[in-house]
């Protein structure tokens, strides 16, 4: 069946993020003024409001910061997925990002806050892949 969930529309300052994701890599913007990576990508850093920024490749390691187990699909594209896990993960580099946890049996017992995760990429169109996380 065709993929019918909402699709991200890459913008100028996030093209690199989405291009790298399609290659199976997670890249972050990094503020060279303070040395901290940040999410989501934007040209001027939110920590220092500095233009002295670049891109770094993330390790793909993260821990589970919080989550919910969605029982009622919020959109027709998710009807076949429920129950599914929405989550905020803390990347090894520091920033937090929204994602899904890819897990066979999504129960509170199987989802411990602080558990180790690693990035996986789900191809959703010919151009786009979504970074998701699974138990490491």
């Amino acid at each position: 069946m065709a993929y019918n969930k909402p699709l991200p529309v890459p913008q100028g300052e996030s093209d690199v993020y989405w291009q790298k994701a399609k290659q199976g890599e997670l890249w972050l913007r990094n503020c060279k003024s303070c040395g901290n990576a940040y999410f989501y990508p934007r040209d001027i850093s939110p920590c220092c409001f500095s233009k002295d920024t670049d891109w770094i490749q993330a390790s793909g390691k993260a821990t589970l910061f919080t989550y919910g187990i969605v029982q009622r699909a919020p959109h027709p594209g998710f009807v076949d997925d429920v129950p599914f896990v929405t989550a905020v993960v803390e990347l090894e580099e520091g920033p937090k990002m929204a994602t899904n946890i890819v897990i066979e049996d999504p129960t509170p017992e199987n989802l411990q806050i602080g558990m180790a995760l690693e990035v996986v990429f789900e191809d959703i169109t010919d151009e786009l892949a979504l970074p998701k996380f699974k138990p490491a």
Partner: protein
Amino acid sequence: MTDLRKTVAIVGVDESDEIGKVPDKSNLTHHAEAAYNALEDAGMSMKDVNGLFTAGTSTLNLAEYLGIEPSFTDTTAVGGSSFIIHIAHAMAAINAGYCDVALVTHGEAGRSRRSRPGGDAADPGSQFETPYGFLGAPINYAMAARRYMHEYGEDKTRQAMAEVAVATRKWAQLNPKAYMKDDMSFDDYHNSRWISWPFHLLDCCLVTDAGGAYVITSAERARDAKKKPVWVLGAAESHDHNLISQMPDLTRTVAKNTGPLALERSGVTHDDIDLAMIYDSFTYTVLATLESLGFCGPGEAPDFVANQRTAPGGDFAMNTSGGGLSYTHSGMYGMFLVLEAVRQLRGECGDRQLDDPKLCLINGTGGSLSSTGTTVLAVD
């Protein structure tokens, strides 16, 4: 800072003609009906209005629809808290002399609307949250509640969420305008279906069709109004994120700043407050807000609301209308906090009327626990 206490007052409030399930009325119909009714409550007409405030639609759209040409216009839209924040903005505008009769309206056919607003594809949320199913408040707020459970204990958080749901329903049973008035037991709460774990259905606010409006004016004009003025003592507003994944602390809202600041500007303390109107989009929102406002410390809300303390007859009066959980919640509920606060302070609440309340604290929360507006209202 300039002392603005009692320089403006709310002199008219009301809902739209019907609220709850109202097929065939648009958002703007609810705006207009509520405006009509609130102006009547104030003893004023649309001709008196020269300041216009709303959220959810532009005042451009609204003023044309209402047929007015305001000299002060404000579409501050930061979620359901916007209508609390508009009180402060009207206070500033009236004190600056930019307008003297401000009309603030809300209307949302949350249940029956025939169109759904779409997000801007270029927004960060459209790229970095919605593809993962971060769609709608129940999903986003559930993740915040899960984090709170992790920090302070799952069982006691669960019990506190149940306490709030059950106590709020008891208030709704005393409000003729409330949408949900059936008895709710603790078992009903615990047995209600999952929406997004850890939220049961009965952790979530209603989705209704409703409008509301209030009229706020200068002290001078307020003294001539039809009913006794409900004075604005002080207010504060803030926001610290938009996307739930970027919230600095999922257990603390910016009410941690706006609560103490609004109280300080009002010259009162927590102990002086007779009624707390706390935006209850979800049961969890109340817990995080009570703590953030400083009514209790971090992690202490479960003890604070225990044993039906916020129910009718309890010693902490809160959400006496029945709240967003059981009275009405059209989408941006903040407006309705103001209506109840004013009616309680005027003594118009019938079976649910508190005993001569003098001070009410209102706290609106908007977005994904993103923004807050805190205001203190008073009567002489």
